[in-house]
């Protein structure tokens, strides 16, 4: 059977097979560490620098150049391993992983193999709408260097190589095959990304390749304890791509097994365009890499004092922050979940809440208007022109009655556009709330004249029309009228 044949899905068997089999998934996540310089040399790690400008004799693999490990890499890797509840090994060994590829100038990648930095951890995910809370065991966390970048489609007939990324520090986080559905894989990845973001070990930017996921997936009969033959999925550029690829590959394997065929162990590439997998190359077993201890690098020793220091320096983690938001700010579970999903959003909320003091209102605005503005502008919150103190000022203006809720939304939209303060915009645009009875009565008289039938019916007892008429007054005042006072004055005027 050819490789090509194995990826064709006998679709007729899909529905039968998928019900009889269980998905088994393990994930390998590569995370670029947030360091200024590379793992084994002093070149910068900047993303987006002109090609082959962040290179030196060490990361180009020039003869005689020797690697020296970046201490911050060790500390960041430890931070992640400790947060993942791993066992930290006091002695770990760097190995050479040999393969030949143009973007690997030394002909080997410095990695860790049989003696990694940390093993036997776990990551617990919360229940979501689709998945129950679960704990996924972490097999290992190890340090390695990245390869360079090959660009195959820039120039006709040749491949273009950029070695800026060669030697950039990574950790690889390998899970046990404890994941049983595509949704659970997504939940694990989101929890891991959130944890790494809180730990500040990586910018976890998938678009820039700071977080890359490979998935090992197999199917086995429901109730079986042995694992089926796995395939490895690559080219997964987003968490939703991971979920879709897992579902597609599981369906393909189920169809094969249901039709009495067997799954071939191989590496597959996800093609988002066709929503299908295609074979990459035959699976290389680990011994193909001819691992051996790197003779240039003595063992990495991690003493207890270092572990203790890193542990003591761990920032507040998502679960603890969630609990604190519920306790300190009196938020519900949903609000606490939303506001802690990203560390930076939570910090923004905290600043607004501290300055404005009404934490529930602050939460509603950050979850609603602020997030909507960020989404509309595709901005990260650290680049949002509206500072937390400015949102707090806006909420203060609403609380004092200077701005109506409607006007506040208009002011906020202008704040997001211009970066100006709420009070400046309110004054400039004439949006301060009007509570002067004479002005309100004038608008009311105009509305009654323009909507006489409704006003008459309201006066005759159709009290529900009062709200409609208040709405007309608000519209006429461009949101500036004090709606409570309008309601009172209108009721008096119509005698209801």
């Amino acid at each position: 059977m050819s490789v090509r044949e194995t990826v064709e899905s006998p679709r007729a068997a899909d529905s039968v097979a998928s019900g009889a089999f269980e998905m088994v998934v393990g994930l390998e996540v590569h995370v670029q560490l947030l360091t200024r310089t590379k793992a084994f040399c002093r070149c910068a790690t900047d993303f987006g620098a002109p090609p082959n400008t962040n290179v030196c004799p060490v990361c180009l693999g020039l003869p005689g150049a020797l690697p020296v490990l970046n201490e911050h890499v060790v500390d960041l890797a430890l931070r992640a391993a400790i947060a993942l509840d791993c066992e930290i090994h006091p002695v770990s060994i760097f190995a050479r992983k040999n393969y030949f590829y143009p973007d690997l100038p030394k002909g080997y990648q410095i990695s860790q193999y049989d003696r990694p930095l940390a093993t036997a951890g776990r990551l617990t995910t919360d229940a979501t709408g689709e998945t129950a809370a679960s704990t996924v065991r972490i097999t290992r966390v190890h340090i390695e260097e990245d390869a360079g970048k090959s660009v195959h489609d820039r120039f006709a007939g040749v491949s273009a190589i950029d070695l800026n990324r060669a030697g950039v520090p990574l950790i690889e986080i390998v899970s046990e095959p404890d994941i049983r559905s595509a949704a659970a894989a997504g939940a694990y990845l989101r929890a891991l990304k959130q944890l790494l973001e809180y730990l500040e070990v990586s910018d976890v930017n998938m678009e820039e390749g700071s977080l890359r996921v490979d998935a090992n997936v197999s199917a086995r009969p429901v109730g079986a304890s042995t694992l089926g033959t796995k395939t490895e999925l690559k080219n997964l550029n987003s968490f939703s791509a991971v979920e879709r690829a897992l579902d597609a590959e599981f369906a393909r394997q189920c169809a094969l097994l249901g039709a009495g065929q067997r799954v071939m162990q191989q590496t597959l590439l996800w093609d988002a365009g066709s929503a299908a997998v295609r074979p990459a190359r035959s699976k290389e077993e680990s011994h193909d890499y001819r691992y051996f201890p790197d003779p240039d690098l003595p063992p990495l020793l991690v003493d207890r004092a270092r572990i203790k220091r890193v542990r003591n320096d761990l920032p507040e983690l998502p679960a603890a922050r969630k609990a604190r938001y519920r306790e300190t700010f009196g938020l519900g579970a949903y609000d606490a979940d939303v506001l802690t999903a990203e560390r930076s959003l939570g910090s923004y909320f905290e600043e607004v809440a501290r300055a404005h003091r009404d934490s529930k209102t602050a939460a509603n605005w950050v979850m609603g208007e602020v997030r909507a503005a960020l989404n509309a502008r595709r901005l990260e919150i650290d680049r949002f022109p509206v500072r937390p103190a400015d949102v707090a000022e806006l909420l203060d203006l609403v609380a004092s009655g200077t701005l109506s809720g409607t006007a506040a939304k208009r002011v906020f939209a202008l704040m997001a556009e211009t970066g100006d303060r709420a009070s400046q915009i309110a004054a400039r645009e004439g949006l301060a709330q009007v509570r002067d009875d004479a002005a309100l009565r004038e608008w009311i008289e105009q509305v009654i004249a323009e909507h006489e039938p409704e006003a008459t019916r309201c006066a005759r007892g159709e009290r529900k029309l009062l709200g409609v008429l208040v709405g007309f007054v608000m519209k006429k005042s461009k949101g500036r009228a004090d709606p409570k006072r309008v309601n009172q004055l209108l009721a008096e005027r119509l005698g209801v």
Partner: protein
Amino acid sequence: MSISLDEVRHIAALARLGISDERAQLAAEELTSILAHMQVLTRVDDERAAGSDTDGKTGMTLRPDLGPPIPLLRAPAFFAPEMREGFFLVPRLATHEDPEPSP
């Protein structure tokens, strides 16, 4: 830190153990005492204690996360067979005619 009767009963229930009120009371006192002792132990400074797994071993030297980079004596273009727009150019591998990620 103390362990309450409710916590003892909860743990017993999780472990599917039947436990009498008398035994639960005793377990709560014992567990509280153990935790109190653990609190004392955590105050011991063990950083210089003998017997660490790394004692006597020679490990690698670490460097601070700082530049500047080691300069190249010549720019990459001097020793690259072919460069275009800053990229090194290599023949496209027969196995990678389609764009795809490296191993």
